């Protein structure tokens, strides 16, 4: 079961301070839906404002990316650029 960590203090407001979760999900989309189920509103915040780093590689807006059972998943602020 992938271990998901929300990086940074900003999103913890919605999770009551918790930042590490075990999430039963095999794709990014399913992970977001499960987190939103547990913490309503978190799904939108992830969709709109966060990137997903899977085993160190950063994905943005990538619902279909697969999560292996031992994947290290970090949710970090979305990256832009100039």
């Amino acid at each position: 079961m992938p271990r998901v960590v929300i990086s940074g203090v900003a999103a913890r407001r919605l999770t009551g301070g918790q930042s590490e979760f075990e999430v039963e999900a095999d794709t990014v989309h399913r992970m977001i839906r499960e987190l939103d189920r547990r913490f309503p509103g978190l799904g939108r915040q992830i969709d709109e404002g966060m990137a997903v780093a899977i085993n160190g590689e950063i994905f943005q807006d990538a619902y279909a990316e697969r999560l292996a059972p031992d994947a290290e998943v970090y949710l970090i602020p979305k990256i832009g650029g100039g």
Partner: protein
Amino acid sequence: MAIDGLKVVGTRPIRPDGVDKVIGRAAFGADMVMPGMLWGKIKRSPHAHARILSIDTSKARALPGVKAVVTAADFPSIPSEEAFMGEGPMNFRDLSRNCMAADKVLYDGHAVAAVAATSQAIAEEAVELIDVKYEVLPHVIDVEAAMAPDAPILHEDLFTSGVEPKPTKPSNIAKKVGFTKGDVAAGFKEAEVVIERRYTTQPVHQAYIEPHACVVSAAPDGQCTIWSSSQGQFMVRAYCAKLLGIDIANIRVVPAEIGGGFGGKTLVYLEPVALALSKQAGRPVKIVMSREEVFRGTGPAAGSVIEVKLGAKRDGRIVAAELLLKYQAGAFPGSPVGPGCMCAFAMYDLPNVNIVGYDVVSNRPKVAAYRAPGAPNSSFGVESCLDELARMLKIDPLRLREINAAKDGTKTAHGPTFTNIGYVQTVEAAKNHPHYKAPLGPNQGRGVASGFWFNIGGESSAACHINEDGTATVVEGNPDIGGSRASMAMMAAEVLGIPYDRVRPVVGDTSSIGFTFLTGGSRVTFATGMAVTQAAEKVVVELKKRAAMIWDISPEAVEWKDGYAVPAGANAGNFEPLSLAEIALKSGRTGGPISAEVSINAQGAGPGFATHICDVEVDPETGHVKILRYTAIQDVGRAIHPSYVEGQIQGGVAQGIGWALNEEYIYDKDGRLDNAGFLDYRIPVASDMPMIEPVMIEVPNPRHPFGARGVGEVPIVPPMAAVANAIADATGMRMRDLPISPPKLRAALDAGTLKEAAE
């Protein structure tokens, strides 16, 4: 010289839009005219902070030749809505209020009204006739002054987010962010030396030479055409649709050539205003910003305070690091303090880290993205502090970085573990470069610094059409700021196996190619290149099918080699190779036009790392700093067109040097910008710069078909610290407040107050 058996990728052909640009024929934003066109002009606030009591436009409307006048009342009211669009967090209500002030003006230069008239002179006169009554309010400019409890508040509905318990009083602190790793308190206890320093930077402008410009035409049935220079025609379309309440399909944005952006043109200022004017007037409207308006009314990079604390062992291993960032967002929330936090220590493998960042509003223009937004600021502090630590420990600064370097498997402070990175290679290359060992003379010094940027992928569409004569047209959706169009043609030519000059790339308008995210984030060669390559590959599959039909064999028995269909081995049949041109000629009869379009959301962009070496000479009498020599080493993945990769590196370095030595916004006591022009906002000129040597290290990115990595933004991250470190080496003087302009350096040298002996 091509590489690895590639024939086109890696070579340096002339860019397809080059001739137009050297003969002056290329059409930029201000070069367009439309029949019946009116000239628009914007009225701007002279106050840094004021309530708008009333706006009387009657005299302006009465002036002969004036055809439209708009204020915020002519724009729909937009609810506050956070969305990540463009190159940073965007609140559309804020964007709308930035384009046209609603109840308050928040900075000197804030737009309050606009007119459209039959000539520029009449438009200027009409602007003067608009009577705005203000209630001037106290203003605040500096980021720490804006954070003080008694600071004038810009937004009564802004409460600091990211702090518990939720505040009840409005604040200018929009957001607090933070990241931790390990246990910094324990880490500092283990440290044998501790160094704590404070650094500051001032807002700087991207200073693209082309001011913002657009020509728009809003027809009575609601359909609009926009010609504008921007970093993304789809962004312009989306933002105008949102701000004016128009269906996206009713807006067609045609991208002009763009005269520089660097992040500053990843949002809109003029287009929504021009649309409102055009709708009212029933005629096309052209608006071009003056240079003064660009400085006063568009988004610079954030000014900042950076406080760094490092704890290390005497052998150079850093065991604890703390960082406090205060970034100034300008009039509305949204500075890049988050990326600033994440990039600062990304080059290093540190066991215990604590980072805190504040996003703070103040009465300055809303900041916009500027090349690796947030990272140059925090890296200036961290890379300078590392240099101070190296001197303290008497360890070579490159060696110090080597000891602490991030490698594959390093866990970052913000969480993810790195894989497939090229940082150490840049440090090694710096150590081994002849520049690092070259002798220095009197008043000369050498500094090094490293940098990091994420790079992004994102949505891109591209089409590849085979023309009847066997040439190819590639349509993509990214304005070409730095030569990317050439790389698109090169990648397509490589896949198709035909000469580069038989592939012509076109930057399509929003109705002519699928959705494409804007040009920025170092994404175009990576993401759009991926789409172009995939489209060309789909075309090759189709070409093989057509050859198979012509030969009456199975498509599996056909291969594509160097622009020809060939039978796959003797068993397939003894057929003469068919050229792309021959197949194209028969395409109508073999199934129709040969064409493919691909739309993707490219993932796996892969970060970039750089290490720079800078030599300076300081004139102790004037405080003038001359850059003698500059070497910029960067991991570029694979250079599709090496000249344009070198160009990105050299350009970023020059901007970083300007940021270090001269550039800043200077405000008077009333919060008005004093230096809104290129005379007093001093960017580097040709005589300031030496040749800049780019060293490209290629650690190919496995996620891209040709190994490309984003390159455009990383080069601006190291220069400020590299220059400051070189000045410290030359003079013994540690300058911690940018810019290190001659009067400041001269004063410091005279006073000798900042001279710090190694502890």
